[in-house]
């Protein structure tokens, strides 16, 4: 997956950088959801362990 978007320069020659690749948006959303799921699971396990020992 590309990180950036390019377009061909109207004057010919090399491609012109025009911005970030929007196909990365699901990656950012997915990373946030993975963080949330991991945190929720670890928090629940930690709470159960503390309740078990108290």
């Amino acid at each position, binding site marked *: 997956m590309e990180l950036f978007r390019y377009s061909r320069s109207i004057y010919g020659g090399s491609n012109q*950088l025009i911005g970030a690749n929007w196909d990365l948006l699901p990656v950012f959303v997915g990373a946030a959801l993975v963080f949330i799921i991991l945190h929720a699971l670890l928090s629940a396990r930690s709470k159960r362990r503390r309740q078990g020992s108290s």
Partner: protein
Amino acid sequence: MDEATSKSQTAPALSPRVPRHKAIDRLYHWLMAICIFTLMATAFLPILGFKFEWLDIHWITGVALTVLVIFHIVRAIGWQDWRNMWIGFADIRDLWRNVAQLLGARKTPPLPGKYDAAQKLYHLGVAIVVLAVVGSGLLMLLKIDTPLWRRNPYVFSGDTWGIIYVVHGMAAMTIVAIVIIHLYFALMPDGWYLLRAMIRGSISRKEYVEHHDAARWKA
């Protein structure tokens, strides 16, 4: 009357509520939230296929966000205690202990001051990406016609514009992720007392004692 009785009669009773956020700071938070959601919607809905005239709403809201950010920086430095958000050695140590507890360590981490280490790190991350998106966005205003100036796309080279657009886009997508995580922590039951504080302005004395160290946040 003996000394103990005299002292107990003159000691001020603790208020049942502890102030946490003044009204102006709550207003700032919610106005910033409206701006961020409006900017995300106008940025990404057209990309996702919902076509509408987004540009004017986007840049005007961006300028409003810029004003809010400048207001916050000035107020935080001049009127609030910026040290509340300073990440020190104690915060790094607390963060390590919080992570250790999540991973199974038995020791309970110490109570934080007004903001815990994770909140301070979140604030630092938000500050960096919002400043990046605002800074790059203000430069991009040079490419559009506004009531104050005519567009001039030639002020920077094509390569420079490319970098500006990359910074803006990457910062914007990072903000999407950060907002999702922020909503999670705000809506988790453990965080409800903080969400109420961002609406009401205060927490109960019981919440203050349960969640904070009085030596680190004097209230």
